[in-house]
């Protein structure tokens, strides 16, 4: 018993050493996978976010056809930078809906006049409640929603030009 106890500190230290070494050489996490992937969209019904587009509700998604859900805001600079990529996606046949976060309808209208409007429907989430339910932590983010209304993919940050084919593939996979 005493024999065992004598070696216990060394054994504990070796365990810690392994832990340290593991932690030190493990690469940082750069890709975060949402827990909501595979789950249905949370239920919501938002008022219209722009004056020339209809409002958005979760029931608009389970239509049998995959859609993109873009989360943006008129006060968000990367969202403006992302606009050409969304336009390219729309021209490639993607249907895009949007939720404007902590925004006002006049500001959204002005933003869409400046940067173009690739959206079919726009909801206004003035208090970020839907955004939080979606597990989104910032703008812009883009979700791929399949025809049954299940979340298939979450893209965090703006969509870059080289991301466009990948997003289109994800949409195809969600058929």
């Amino acid at each position: 018993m005493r024999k065992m106890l004598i070696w216990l500190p060394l054994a504990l230290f070796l365990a810690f050493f392994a832990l340290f070494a593991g932690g030190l050489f493990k690469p940082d996490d750069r890709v975060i996978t949402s827990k909501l992937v595979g789950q249905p969209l949370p239920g919501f019904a938002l008022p219209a976010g722009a004056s020339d587009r209809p409002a958005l509700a979760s029931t608009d998604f389970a239509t049998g056809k995959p859609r993109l859900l873009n989360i943006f805001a008129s006060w968000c600079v990367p969202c403006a930078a992302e606009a050409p990529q969304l336009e390219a996606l729309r021209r490639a046949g993607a249907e895009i809906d949007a939720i404007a976060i902590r925004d006002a309808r006049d500001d959204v209208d002005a933003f869409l006049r400046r940067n173009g409007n690739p959206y079919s429907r726009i909801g206004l989430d003035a208090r970020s409640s839907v955004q939080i339910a979606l597990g989104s932590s910032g703008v812009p983010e883009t979700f791929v929603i399949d025809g049954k209304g299940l979340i298939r993919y979450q893209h965090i940050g703006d969509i870059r030009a080289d991301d466009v084919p990948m997003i289109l593939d994800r949409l195809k996979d969600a058929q």
Partner: protein
Amino acid sequence: MIAEAGLAALWFAAALALLQLVLVAMGLTGRKDELLAAVRPVAVAQGLLTALAFAALVTLFLRSDMSVLLVVTNSHSMKPWLYKFAGTWGNHEGSMLLWVTVMGVAGAAVALFERALRRDTHMATLGAQAAISLGFYAFLLFSSNPFARISPAPADGQGLNPLLQDPGLAFHPPTLYLGYVGLSVAFSFAVGALLTRRVDSAFARAMRPWVLAAWVLLTLGITAGSYWAYYELGWGGWWFWDPVENASLMPWLAATALLHSVTVLATRDALRAWTVMLAVVAFSMSMVGTFLVRSGILTSVHAFAVDPERGSFILALLAIYIGGALALFGWRIGTVREGEPFELVSRETMLVVNNLLLSVILGLVLVGTLYPLLTEAFGHKVSVGAPYFDRIAGPIALGLMVAMAAGPLMRWRRDSAAAAGRRLLVPAAVLIVAAVVVGLLAWGRIGILPYLGLVIALATAVASVTPLWRRSLRRTPLFTWGMVIAHLGCAVSLAGMASDSAFTVEKLVAARPGDVIETAGWRLRFVQILPRAGDNWTALQADVEASRGGGSPTMLHPQARFFASPPTPTTEAALLTRWDGQLYVVLGQEADAGRWQMRIWWKPFVTLIWLGGFLIALGGALALVGRERRGWVLKWRARRAVA
């Protein structure tokens, strides 16, 4: 030139450390006395060379020599001289140079002043110290050279992190490092004793002053760091359970346990293996702490050198030193005789309880700090915060306080339960009375932990001075005074912590000049807000007139500061200290036109936390002086008797 001289001194010191190690190894195994005779001078020369290298770096910082990379990245010619000076160790390379300097100088001190230890153990200790130093020299020279030049030299430097531009930087890191690295002496003693198979009370008596000195400095460093964080960060808290704070707390917990077990070993020749183990653990915790800070493996407000390469270097050092010492422990401790026995009701038992509780807290803090690493290894990412530590460590710390109150009232070796009970009567009565009184006054308004904290603080304060009861205060030995004051300090500090968490009043307002804010009996008038300029910063400064109970008002000046280089905003809290607490005012951002956010805390008796910390360190210092002075007196008498 100065940089090259510093680097050369560092290389020479490293070479001498290697020589010291070889001399000890050959001298002890071959029983060659002429080799061992050279060890002490070599250790002293090594200490002097490290001091020289450190002085060179300080000179470079004071002169703002912008051809040195470290000065460029961490200093600026416009900085006040105190921060140029303190900026020497406000960065990774400089602080590691401070580390090896303290280690070298401590080794020299062991060579010069240690007289009580047997010669072979002394030599083995110096060999171990050289071996540890060697690793850290290699770390500095191969991966963190503080003297590297930069060419072409830029016109000026990038400045020092403004949070560090505070007089606290001149005091807190050096004392903390003296404590951290001072524990390396205890580690070397333990290794030396294991190698020469001399774990006995004479060894413990020789080791005790070194442990005490390191522990006193560690206590001061932690106390100063806590107060610094309290007023500099502007969050109103004094302990955040940040990984780096834990990194300083863990060696302190181990050193506190060691301090008590070494006393048992010195007085009663018991707890031999345990004391050696604690000596190894205490410095290991210092090294683990450094590893956590330097590797960037855990994120923290202190992580200023996120670098896996350096991390793996320190990890290798950890493996060699801690692994080596623990292996030596396992291999040799079986040959150490069992110590003297003692009975259940005795001071030894209370000290064992103290050691166990300290070790449990140490283990819990260690697990809590490493929890993110542990869970990540199993695929989750979870970290634990202050609530975990408060809830887990709090109750055990309270139990520890009770043991601390009772311990000094027990007799060594054997005590009768009845007699011990009589001695504990007064503190127990105070405990009950305090429980009732505090309960009646504050029940339902304060949490259970702060309540227990207040009650136990009162009772332990009384218990801690009880050993002086019916003693001639003049004849009481200084080390008994030291123990009494240190234990009283624990009670005082606990009272401050409990009072702060039980009774603090916080108020957040948006005020415009002319407004009057009333909180916790204070009346604060926001007079005006004006720009101010310092050496290397500009600030918006609020003038706030604080008064209480119709007394004369005091002007407070909280600032929102902007440092030019590097460009950083900071808050400078304004503190008003009264005998019964502190008023803490922080100026925030402009809320809307003409209104300013202001955060105001009234913290009753919060200053007791640091007063207690200071008393603990003072008690340690008195015990150190008391023990040493007794040694000198005995030696003097012996010399006179011979004459």
